[in-house]
């Protein structure tokens, strides 16, 4: 099979407009004859479900949460980008496009990124109309702030809770359609398999998490908006339930997986304190606007930070990158923090932290100003660490945050399975090898509000749909298989609880496929993961019963998939013998320690085809052409 990205012809500025005109439409009266299943209700899923229902399609939406509003998009803090150029600082669609392609270290598809930049302004208008209370200036107009990887202020925000407010906006649109009866919504349902009939995605089988029953849902197209797979590392900033099961099972049914090794490590998280830690907490990188990052110049300096004089501090980002300073992209900031700690300059009890210091901003603008901008983040920090960030510098360390990789999709956001569309973090499409801050919210909503409503129509209008219902053998067989796998899991009755095995996997991944990767480590990981997977299938211990509410069983299903996905991540990381963005192969760096790409060999999307558990997947390459933003060594100096 050859990959066809279906990028429309023509100049990049006109591709989307031309494509929208050329796509087939579904007549308004015919839309209600089509049934679309949307899995996941975060920004991408809620916005897609609501927009499609408004158009007249029949929509079924499901999520494993108890309410659509709980999806992890809610936790995004900092903001959402749009090149409105309200501050008059030289922003434009072209600049956002340029920044995003460059920020992604030239591993994203230009046409997709341009479209993203194009529709982003409409997202702001849409959200304002929904009643999202964005921050405003005294004149009543919308306020902007700056973010990593950009030299203009284009980030719209709602205090430190932008994701929450945008999700509640999308949730309100979704709720309205549920009230109108155009969307049927099912909560506490976890998708466990995709059903493909005659080569088309025709539905899913989900587990009812309250009763334990397997339920089939039939449609003419399936949309996955199920988020990323950062929890493969066990410790990440993802919510506890975030998982790869929906995307991974679709992968096993034939959807290629794009760039699985591209994971983002976020620089401003609260450091790990103990073995009991269940997750890591991120603090918005908007803090880097006003806070200064430093470590003591002397190695192993154990003095209280406030006792270390100014000339004994190394503001290393400002020193290394005079033009971007503390606002370098996330991958650079993270890697430099690790480097400082590895060299012995780390602070705090574990030595795995650097300081984020607000004292000069407090001196300049006052504590009140900092409180108004970032108050909730300071509160959060104090809650977790017991320390006051206004009185002494905060300690931060990088943590797994986002996965740029995901199911491969074409320009229409369709995977390699006809009728299976993938939106938001779950797809691989727009961020290349590194995502810029405030771009995840933008992409999720762009996909859901402004891309899928058009592209899905073209698929529906040009495809044939034989009549299928839940009694079709494909659904019955899938239900039976899932029931057998579940019984098998329950019957193991081994010695290790799910979390114990998950922590073991997380450690392998963090040590060998984390911020720095090398050939030897990845090869070790590829030996260790299959062994751990075998241990899981022989020694996991799940209490309770399969036909009731059982959180341990839910976790076991998810871990089973992480134990397969992790192997693919390492395979991908091993094959990509270059550094780019968040993928830092230690063998491939410049003299001053920056990521060194190899455009001659690796300027492509790696799309992997599943070949059976434990078998090496087949690599398909989608070449990347850069016609408008010429690849160069990224420089933030």
């Amino acid at each position, binding site marked *: 099979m050859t990959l066809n990205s279906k990028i429309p012809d023509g100049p990049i500025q006109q591709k989307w407009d031309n494509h929208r005109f050329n796509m087939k439409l579904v007549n308004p009266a015919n839309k209600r004859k089509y049934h679309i299943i949307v899995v996941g209700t975060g920004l991408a899923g809620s*916005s897609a479900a*609501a*927009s499609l229902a*408004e158009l007249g399609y029949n929509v079924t939406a499901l999520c494993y*949460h*108890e*309410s659509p*509003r*709980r999806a*992890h998009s809610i*936790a995004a803090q900092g903001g959402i980008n749009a090149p*409105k150029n309200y501050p008059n600082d030289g922003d434009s669609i072209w600049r956002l496009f340029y920044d995003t392609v460059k920020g992604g270290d030239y591993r994203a598809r230009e046409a997709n990124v341009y479209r993203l930049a194009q529709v982003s302004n*409409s997202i702001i*208008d*849409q*959200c304002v*109309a929904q*009643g999202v*209370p964005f*921050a*405003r200036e005294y*004149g*009543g*107009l*919308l306020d902007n702030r700056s973010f990593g990887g950009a030299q203009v202020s284009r980030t*719209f925000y*709602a205090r430190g*809770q932008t994701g*929450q*407010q945008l999700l509640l906006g999308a949730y*309100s*649109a979704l*709720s*309205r359609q549920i*009230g109108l009866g155009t969307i049927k919504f099912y909560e506490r349902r976890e998708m466990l398999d995709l059903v493909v009939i005659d080569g088309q995605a025709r539905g899913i089988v989900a587990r009812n998490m*309250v009763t334990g029953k397997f339920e089939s849902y039939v449609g003419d197209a399936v949309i996955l908006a199920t988020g990323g797979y950062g929890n493969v590392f066990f410790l990440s900033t993802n*919510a*506890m339930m975030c998982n790869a099961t929906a995307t991974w099972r679709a992968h096993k049914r034939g959807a290629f997986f794009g760039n699985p090794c591209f994971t983002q490590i976020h620089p401003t998280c609260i450091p790990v304190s103990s073995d*009991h*830690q*269940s*997750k890591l*907490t*991120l603090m918005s990188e908007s803090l880097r606007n006003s806070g200064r990052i430093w470590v003591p110049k002397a190695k192993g300096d154990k003095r209280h930070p406030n006792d270390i004089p100014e000339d004994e501090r190394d503001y290393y980002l400002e020193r290394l990158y005079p033009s971007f300073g503390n606002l370098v992209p996330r991958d650079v900031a993270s890697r430099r923090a690790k480097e400082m700690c590895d060299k012995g300059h780390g602070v705090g009890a574990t030595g795995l932290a650097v300081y984020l210091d607000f004292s000069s901003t407090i001196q300049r603008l006052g504590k009140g100003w900092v409180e108004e901008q970032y108050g909730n983040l300071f509160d*959060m920090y104090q*809650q*977790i660490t*017991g320390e006051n960030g206004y009185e002494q510098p905060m300690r931060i360390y990088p943590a797994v945050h986002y996965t740029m990789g995901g199911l491969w999709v074409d320009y229409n956001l369709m995977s390699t399975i006809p009728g299976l569309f993938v939106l938001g973090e779950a797809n691989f499409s727009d961020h290349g090898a590194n995502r810029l801050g405030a771009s995840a919210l933008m992409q999720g909503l762009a996909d859901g*509000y402004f891309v899928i409503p058009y592209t899905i129509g073209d698929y529906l209008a040009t495809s044939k749909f034989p009549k299928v219902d839940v009694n079709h053998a494909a659904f019955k067989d899938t239900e039976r298989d899932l029931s057998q796998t579940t019984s098998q899991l329950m019957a193991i009755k081994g010695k290790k*609880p799910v*979390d*114990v095995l998950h922590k073991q996997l997380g450690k392998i991944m963090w040590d060998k496929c984390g911020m720095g990767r090398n050939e030897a480590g990845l090869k070790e990981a590829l030996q260790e993961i299959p062994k751990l997977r075998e241990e899981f299938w022989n020694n996991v*211990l*799940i*209490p*309770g019963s399969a036909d*009731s*509410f059982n*959180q*341990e069983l839910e976790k076991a299903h998810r871990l089973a998939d992480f134990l397969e996905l992790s192997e693919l991540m390492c395979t991908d990381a091993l094959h990509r013998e270059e550094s780019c963005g968040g993928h830092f192969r230690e063998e491939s760096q410049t003299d001053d320690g920056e990521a060194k790409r190899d455009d001659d060999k690796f300027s492509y999307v790696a799309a992997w085809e599943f070949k059976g558990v434990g078998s090496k997947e087949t690599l398909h390459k989608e070449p990347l052409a850069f016609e408008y933003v010429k690849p160069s060594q990224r420089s933030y100096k």
Partner: protein
Amino acid sequence: MSENTMTIKLKIWRQKDRNSGGQLVTYTMPGVSPDMSFLEMLDLLNLDLVRKGEDAVAFDHDCREGICGTCSLYINGRAHGPLRGVTACQLHMRTFHDGETIVIEPWRAKPFPIIKDLVVDRSAFDRIMAVGGFISVKTGGTPDGNAIPIAKPVAEEAMDAAACIGCGACVAACKNGSAMLFVSAKVSQLALLPQGHAERKARVEAMVAQMDEEGFGNCSNTYACEAECPKNISVEHIARLNREYLRAKFIQE
């Protein structure tokens, strides 16, 4: 950290499912570090229970950073525990002392039926939202975001209301099981913003009617909701809800 661990006694509500009876079960937890979060302490208990082949304590949780609104524990007689302005997941064990007995119950309110142990069904909130918790705007065709200036204090007050995480602590804390704080937060946010004015009357009437139908009680101004709200949502929004409701009854639109 191991030098100053604590031993905690837990009394946890265990209930097999919606139709079964339940009871408080006592567990002793040694080795609790003050730096652990409250939910990590429960993780530790569950690890221990699972190793013994016993059913883990079911509790709802997800983001563990106080924003998703999933966690819903009634701790020592208070929604989200003893601290103000935080959710249960943001609570750390340093708030408790060695040897302390901690009682953990689910939200107790008729419209929130128990699913298992500490997990309740809060879908009543979603049903209230579905009848009016929105501005009726379709995707596309909206005016420029700066077309309607909104005074900063108004936007800020709307944001104060919009900060509600829909956790249901207000209902659990209220002796009447009233959802007025939750409903008022949304009504207030959308009544304050000019975009929401067109549907003021219909919105408040529909949401209040659904709130009553779900079986939530009335407000008798004890302010327990505000005291226990992890996002410090003010009861002033309830006053605005009442004004909106009265206004709706007196005007025709």
